[in-house]
């Protein structure tokens, strides 16, 4: 698989993910309308219209602003303000230069740079194309890695930018978040409908049956959403292949011509086993190493291929060592 195939595949899959998401929410809306038609015999497709509007705007928001959402969820600060806050920190200058170096080496525009206040070493890239990209690293990464190792990690992230991996992975992260929000909202709506709605006497004069029916409907939607949310999240994340990390490692070696440094960096990141608490599950696939430190990533087989977001770390390190003609 080469760069252009990967770019084309990521573009296709981004569309697929958005269509699947809109389709599923639409299905939910249609179910709601079918239920209300059966219960009240009144056909106004409110559910369908709301579902279409909600899913369409969410998909558009995820596409254009997904990177902001991901960065905000990690409480990342941009490098310029981090440098202004602590001008004596040499690691910030180093990162600033390394980003420029890799932008030059890859021939891409310089991405926005963010610092995630977390002590665990990790890094991720987000955005929708090389012109709208951001690279974020944790404070822990800056503390742990040498300049050359940091260069390898940044080159790896630049490769994700160039491959359009960032577009697919950011969309998936934003939509997984949206599905979780949907489940949360319907849970709240149901509680309000069940307790708030039935306690007050109905003013519309159509009797008490209406409040009960609405509560039941919301309960149904909530149940469906609760059951569906992890499934949808899983389905979306499955679009992200584990292979992408190998490709990004290889492209990083091509940029820095120093695969050994990236292998050292991965070893250093892996040896710090604590989870990256600032990065949530929905964004895990964006990171250079699994922020949750799940053991499923270390295996192979149907189970691992379905649930893992990253390939086994030792295989990545071995592949890089082979490129550097080093034996372990």
């Amino acid at each position, binding site marked *: 698989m080469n760069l252009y195939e990967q770019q084309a595949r990521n573009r296709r899959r981004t569309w697929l993910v958005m269509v699947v998401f809109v389709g599923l929410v639409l299905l939910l809306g249609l179910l709601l309308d079918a239920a209300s038609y059966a219960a009240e015999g009144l056909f106004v497709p409110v559910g369908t219209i709301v579902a279409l509007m909600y899913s369409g705007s969410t998909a558009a928001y995820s596409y254009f602003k997904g990177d902001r959402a991901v960065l905000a969820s990690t409480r990342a600060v941009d490098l310029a303000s981090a440098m202004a806050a602590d001008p004596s920190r040499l690691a910030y200058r180093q990162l600033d230069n390394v980003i420029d170096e890799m932008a030059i*080496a890859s021939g891409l525009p310089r991405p926005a740079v963010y610092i995630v206040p977390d002590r665990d070493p990790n890094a991720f890239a987000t955005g929708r194309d090389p012109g709208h990209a951001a690279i974020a690293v944790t404070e822990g990464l800056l503390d742990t890695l040498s300049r050359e190792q940091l260069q390898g990690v940044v080159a790896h992230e630049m490769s994700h930018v160039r491959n359009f991996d960032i577009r697919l992975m950011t969309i998936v992260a934003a939509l997984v978040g949206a599905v979780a929000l949907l489940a949360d909202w319907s849970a709240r709506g149901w509680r309000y409908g069940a307790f708030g709605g039935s306690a007050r006497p109905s003013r519309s004069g159509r009797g008490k049956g209406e409040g009960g029916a609405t509560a039941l409907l919301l309960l149904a939607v909530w149940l469906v959403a609760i059951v569906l949310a992890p499934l949808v999240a899983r389905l979306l994340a499955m679009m992200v292949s584990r292979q992408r990390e190998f490709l990004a490692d290889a492209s990083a070696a091509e940029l820095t011509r120093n695969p050994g440094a990236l292998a050292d960096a991965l070893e250093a990141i892996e040896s710090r086993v604590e989870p990256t608490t600032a990065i949530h599950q929905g964004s895990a696939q964006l990171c250079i190493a699994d922020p949750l430190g799940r053991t499923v990533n270390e295996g192979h087989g149907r189970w691992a291929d379905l649930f893992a977001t990253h390939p086994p770390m030792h295989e990545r390190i071995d592949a890089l060592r082979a490129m550097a003609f080093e034996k372990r």
Partner: protein
Amino acid sequence: MSVLVTIGALALVALWAMGSYNKLVGLRNQVTNGWRQIDVQLKRRHDLIPNLINTVKGAMEFERDTLEAVVAARNRAVAASGPADAGRKEGELSAALGRFFALAESYPQLTANQNVRALQEELTGTENKIGFARQFYNDIATKYNTATQVIPGNIIAGFAGFKAAELFEITSEAERAVPSVDLSLKKG
């Protein structure tokens, strides 16, 4: 009928020639841009060196020769004319800077100094950027050269006068030389 076929064939050839020409122009512009990137970084290194020398001058009083060598190499590089000459003189400057940094390691008060470390980082960054700009330039120039030399492309390139781009090579002996390290234990 045969007239139509001929016109159609000619139109196809014209379309292909146009597409091929445009692709070459695009590549040539990338090559020019790649070259300019190297220039930008070289200029930046020239600007940084006086700062560095001023910062370390006091602490490295005894290394006057090395400092002067860096300044002299820098001034020669600034005055260089033409890519080949510039390539050689920039190589000498890189070598002089390398010697300076190796020497600076033995001055703990320097390596601990915040300003020196910041300047050293800037220079390391600039050195790397020069290297990566060259690497990118060579990659894109090779792509351009290949496009002008392979079979159908070379016809267009020949007619439209696309010249092969010069690759960036290490021209100075000083830069090419592998640093020698003497680890034999001398007996006094």
